C-alpha cells in the first residue's frame, strides 16, 4: 500500500539536543493522522522538516511514493504540502487576502489585483465553510478566524496534504467543533491531514491512526479505533496517567475577592466588562467559562491593575485594590499566571533564576536596600526548579530555551510560591501535554486546599468542569450565570456561553 507521505528514519539535531532521532512517519491518502508527544518531544520539528523549513541530518522523505529532497517551503508547496503552524505565520498589518495571496499574487498590469484575489478567497472560504472577512486586517480578527486564514493559505496553494500543529490549543470549544467539521470536510474532498494535538479526546474523535514520539524517538503507530485515551497517554509519557483530577470537596470560607458593578473599557474605548459582579471565597476555585472576547482578558487586567477601571470597585480581603498599580495589587496578596506566557509571563532573555524572582527581586532576602543578593536568588531558583520539576540545564539558562511546558511550570512555581491569598490562573495549560496539565491542575487544587481563593479562566470546558468548584459563565462583559459543575453539562454551558437563558440554576 502506498503512502502520500512517508518520512523514513529522520534525524534532526539542534545545538545540544537531538530533536528527532530516527523517526519514521507514514501517512495514508485521505486519512487524518495524529502525531502525539510531550512538549519538546519533537513534533513541530518533524513537521518543519516535512515542510522544508528544517533540513534533516539523516533520513528520506517520500511524497506519493517518489523520493523528494525538499529543503524549502517552496518545494513543499509545489508538492502539495501545506502547514498550519503552531505559532501563526500571519502578518498582522496585512489584510486577510494579502496574507493568503502573499508570494503567489494575482496581478493586473504589474499591480496586485486585490479585487479578484478577494473573490477567489471568498470562493474558497465558501467551498470549505471557512468564514473569513477578506478585507479585515489580521490584527483585528479573532484567533479562530486567524486560523481559518492559515488553512485558506494552504488551500489557496492547492495543498493536498495539510499539517496542523496544535490547532486546537488556541481555540474556544465552539471553534474546535467547527474546525473538526472542516477537517472532516477536507478529507472527504480527498485531502490528507496530519494533526498534532495534546488533547486525546480529539484524537479519538477525528483521527484514523496515531503516531507517538517520546523525547525525539518514534514509539510507534496505532489504529485509533482500537485504542483509548489512557493507552495513548501511557504510550506517550511512558507511564500511567490519570485524568480525572483527584480532589476532595471544597469547604469555602470567608470571601477573598469581591467585585462590584465593574466597568472596564477595552482599547477601542467600548465597555468590555460591563457591570460585572463576582465574589470568590477562600478555599474555592471559581472557573470562568466563556467564549473568547467576552471581556475575560479585560477583567483580569482590571483586577491585576494593568488596565484602568472606569466604574465599580474591587476588594481583595478588606483592602480596596481598585485602580491600584500592579505592584500594589500583587503586594496585597495576589498571584497571577498570565495567559500569554511569552508576552507577560517571562522575560525570555533573562535567566530562569532571574525570572523566578521577577515579582520579588526588590524584597528581602533577594535584595537589600537596592542591592541585589544573588546567592539567595539562585538558592530560591534552584529550590523551585527541583520542587516544580522545571526541566532546564540550570538556573542560569535563558528562559527562552525552555519548552513552553517548562516555561509554564517556571511561572507557576514563581507565582504559587509567593503563597498569596488569591491566585489567578489564565489558560494555565494551553499547549501543554497531559503530563504537564495533570501537574498544574494538582497544584491549583493544592492551593485551594491550603485555603486560597483561586480564579481559573479557560476556554477548555472540561478543564473548567474538572477543576472548578463553581463555574461563573461570562457573556458580553457580565456574569450571566453561576453553576455547580456537578449539576451541569457541556451542552448547558455552551448554551449559556452563547447568551442563552437557562431554566434551572438562577442567573445572578
Amino acid at each position, binding site marked *: 500500500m502506498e503512502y502520500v507521505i512517508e518520512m523514513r528514519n529522520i534525524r534532526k539535531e539542534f545545538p545540544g539536543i537531538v530533536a528527532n532521532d530516527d523517526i519514521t512517519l507514514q501517512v495514508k491518502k485521505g486519512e487524518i493522522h495524529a502525531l502525539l508527544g510531550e512538549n519538546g518531544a519533537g513534533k513541530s520539528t518533524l513537521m518543519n522538516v516535512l515542510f522544508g523549513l528544517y533540513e534533516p541530518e539523516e533520513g528520506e522523505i517520500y511524497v506519493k511514493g517518489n523520493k523528494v529532497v525538499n529543503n524549502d517551503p517552496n518545494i513543499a508547496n509545489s508538492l502539495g504540502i501545506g502547514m498550519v503552524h503552531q505559532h501563526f505565520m500571519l502578518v498582522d498589518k496585512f489584510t486577510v487576502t494579502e496574507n493568503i495571496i502573499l508570494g503567489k499574487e494575482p496581478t493586473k498590469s504589474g499591480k496586485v489585483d486585490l479585487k479578484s484575489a478577494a473573490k477567489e478567497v471568498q470562493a474558497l472560504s465558501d467551498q470549505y465553510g471557512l468564514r473569513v472577512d477578506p478585507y479585515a486586517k489580521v490584527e483585528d480578527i479573532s484567533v479562530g478566524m486567524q486560523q481559518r486564514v492559515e488553512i485558506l493559505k494552504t488551500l489557496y496553494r492547492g495543498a493536498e496534504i495539510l499539517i496542523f500543529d496544535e490547532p486546537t490549543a488556541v481555540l474556544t470549544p465552539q471553534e474546535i467543533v467547527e474546525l473538526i467539521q472542516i477537517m472532516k470536510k477536507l478529507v472527504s474532498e480527498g485531502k490528507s491531514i496530519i494533526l498534532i494535538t495534546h488533547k486525546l479526546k480529539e484524537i479519538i474523535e477525528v483521527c484514523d491512526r496515531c503516531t507517538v514520539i517520546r523525547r525525539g524517538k518514534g514509539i510507534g503507530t496505532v489504529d485509533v479505533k482500537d485504542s483509548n485515551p489512557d493507552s495513548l497517554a501511557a504510550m506517550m509519557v511512558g507511564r500511567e496517567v490519570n485524568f480525572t483530577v483527584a480532589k476532595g470537596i471544597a469547604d469555602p470560607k470567608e470571601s477573598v475577592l469581591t467585585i462590584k458593578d465593574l466597568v472596564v473599557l477595552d482599547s477601542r474605548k467600548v465597555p468590555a466588562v460591563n457591570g460585572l459582579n463576582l465574589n470568590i471565597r477562600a478555599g474555592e476555585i471559581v472557573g470562568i467559562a466563556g467564549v473568547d472576547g467576552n471581556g475575560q482578558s479585560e477583567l483580569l487586567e482590571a483586577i491585576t491593575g*494593568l488596565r484602568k477601571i472606569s466604574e465599580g470597585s474591587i476588594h481583595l480581603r478588606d483592602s480596596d485594590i481598585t485602580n491600584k498599580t*500592579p505592584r*500594589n495589587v500583587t503586594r496585597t496578596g495576589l498571584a497571577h499566571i498570565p495567559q500569554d506566557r511569552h*508576552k507577560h509571563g517571562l*522575560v525570555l*532573555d533573562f535567566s530562569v533564576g532571574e525570572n523566578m524572582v*521577577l515579582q520579588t527581586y526588590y524584597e528581602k532576602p533577594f*535584595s537589600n536596600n537596592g542591592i*541585589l543578593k544573588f546567592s539567595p536568588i539562585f538558592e530560591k531558583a534552584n529550590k523551585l526548579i527541583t520542587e516544580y520539576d522545571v526541566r532546564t540545564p540550570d538556573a542560569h539558562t535563558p528562559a527562552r530555551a525552555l519548552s513552553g511546558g517548562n516555561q509554564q511550570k517556571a511561572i507557576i512555581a514563581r507565582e504559587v510560591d509567593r503563597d498569596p491569598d488569591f491566585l489567578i490562573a489564565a489558560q494555565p495549560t494551553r499547549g501543554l501535554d497531559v503530563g504537564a496539565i495533570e501537574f498544574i491542575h494538582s497544584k491549583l487544587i493544592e492551593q485551594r486546599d491550603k485555603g486560597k481563593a483561586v480564579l481559573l479562566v479557560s476556554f477548555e470546558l472540561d478543564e473548567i468542569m474538572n477543576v472548578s468548584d463553581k463555574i461563573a459563565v461570562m457573556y458580553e462583559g457580565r456574569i450571566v450565570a453561576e453553576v455547580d459543575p456537578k449539576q451541569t453539562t457541556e451542552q448547558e454551558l455552551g448554551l449559556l456561553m452563547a447568551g442563552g437563558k437557562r431554566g434551572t440554576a438562577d442567573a445572578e
Partner: protein
Amino acid sequence: MQNNNNKIKFLVPLVSVLLGLLIGGIIMLVSDYDPFEAYVALFQGIIGGPYFIGETIRQMSPLILAGLAVAFAFRTGLFNIGVEGQLLVGWLASVYVGVFVDAPAIIHIPLAILAAGVAGALWGAIPGILKAKFKVHEVITTIMMNYIALYSTNEIIRQFMLAPGERTKTIKETASLSSPFLQKITDYSTLHYGIIVALIAAVIMWFILWRTTLGFELRAVGFNQHASQYAGINVSKNIVLSMAISGVFAGIAGSMEGLGTYQYMTINAAFTGVGFDGIAVALLGANSAIGVVLGAALFGGLKIGALNMQSIAGVPTELVGVVIALIIFFVACSYIVHWLMNRVNKGGKI
C-alpha cells in the same frame, strides 16, 4: 559552553583587529604607502614612550564615558544618538562652574563634574520623557536635541562667557583635572586625572546594571516591557531614568574636555564627534562596562596613533578611520566565529 563563549569573547575582537589592520595595509599598498613604516609609526604613536601613552589614555577618558552613555541606554532598549548634545551641555556646565565658582579643589572639581552630570541628565531626560509620555521615537528627539545643544551652548558662551579666541575664560586651577605631575611623567602629554573619573564611571555602570534592583528593572524593561509591567515595574519611569543616567555619563564626558583636555569651552562650529564615536565604542564593547573601556582604548589609541602615522609615514589620518570601520564590521560579524565555534562544539558533544 560557558568557557567557550568567553574564549570567543576575546577571540572575536582580536581576530577583527588583525583583519582590519591587514586590509588597511593592503589599501596602503595599492595607494603606494609603506604599510610597515606606517604601522610602526601607528604603534609608536599609541604606546611608543610615555608621551604617546599619555595622549592615548587622555583620548580614552571622554570615549569611555560617551561609550558608557550609549551602552547604558542600549541596555534598556533605547538608542541614544544624543550623547553628542548631552556632552556639549555637560561641557558647558562644568566650565561654568569651573569659571564662576570659588572653592577649594576638593569641592570645586566634584562640583563641576556634578554640574556636568546634572546638565547631561536633564538633556537626556527630555527625550526619555517624550518617549515615555508621548511615545516619540528617541532616535529623532536625540538627533534634534544635538542641534539644539550645539547652537544654544554657542549662544550662551557668546552672551555670558566670551573670552578672546572664541571661547570661554579658562577655568580656575581649583577646578582643573589637569596634573603637572601626570604631564611631567608623560613628558608633557595632555594626560589628566579624567581617566580615573572615567574608570570609576565604568565600574558604576556595571554595578548599577548587574548588582542593583534598578539595573534589574532597566534590563527587564529593555527585554520585555509587557512582562515588566506585569511584574509591577514602572516602565515609563525606567525609560526616563535610563535616558537620564545615560545623559549623566555623557555630561561627564563633556567635563573631561572642560576640566581636563581644554580647561575651557570653545564656540563649536560643528559637533565634536565624540558622541558618535561613543556609539562605535559601545558597540565594539558589546555594551558591557569592560568592553567599553577596551573599545575606548582601541578606538582612542588608533585615533592618536594616526597622528603619528601621518607625521612619520605621511599616511592620511582618514585611513585609520577606514581601519576602525573595518574592525567594527568584523566584530559585528562575529556570527561567523560563533557559528564555527558552535560547529566545533557540537562535534565535540555529540
